[in-house]
């Protein structure tokens, strides 16, 4: 019964985004959207550690491509467009934003 965690706040503005990941489990996934994609680039943010730990625990991490493009952020994460985001919503049993 895996869950998709949706993040949308800038990592430096909202420590709750990293905190949310403490509720994620193996097989769950995370998608960075809107200002949360500032945590998808090369810069060290309050999400960096939490995302690395999530990855180690078998939690897939995605980032929303149009939000990355709008902000000029390049990422090594797997990216999806809106259609891919919808697809993720169907693949996971529920979403927590």
């Amino acid at each position: 019964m895996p869950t998709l965690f949706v993040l949308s706040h800038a990592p430096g503005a909202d420590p709750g985004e990293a905190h949310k990941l403490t509720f994620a489990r193996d097989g769950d996934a995370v998608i960075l959207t809107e200002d949360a994609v500032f945590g998808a680039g090369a810069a060290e943010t309050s999400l960096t550690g939490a995302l690395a730990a999530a990855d180690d625990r078998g939690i897939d991490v995605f980032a929303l491509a149009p939000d990355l493009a709008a902000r000029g952020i390049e990422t090594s994460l797997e990216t999806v467009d809106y259609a891919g985001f919808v697809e993720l919503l169907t693949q996971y049993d529920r979403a927590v934003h």
Partner: protein
Amino acid sequence: MKTVLFMIRTAPHGSAAIPESHRACLGFATMPFEVNYLLTEEAVWALQPGQRAEAIGGHDARALVGELGDLDVSLYAEAEALEARGIDSDAVAPIQPLSADEIADLIAGADAVLTY
């Protein structure tokens, strides 16, 4: 019967998160849903005793949350957040403190999660 989880992480009074989630919760409580209501992070301040919300024309957040319990809504709070704020988890009954792992269970058991 479907299970809905309300997850509130916003502090009471500075925003409408508590009264709005309370109101939405009333809608679910009158329908065939199992309703869980969980306070995390700054939202656990809703359980602080001694709120005199009339000082700002507001509602006692602890009373609003308590009301939900009378409607068969199951009430939970993040134990770590309570402890960090010095809110006595014994004093918040019938609200049940949960570990991060128990919160993960609660999420995994929900058909829908509404966040505030």
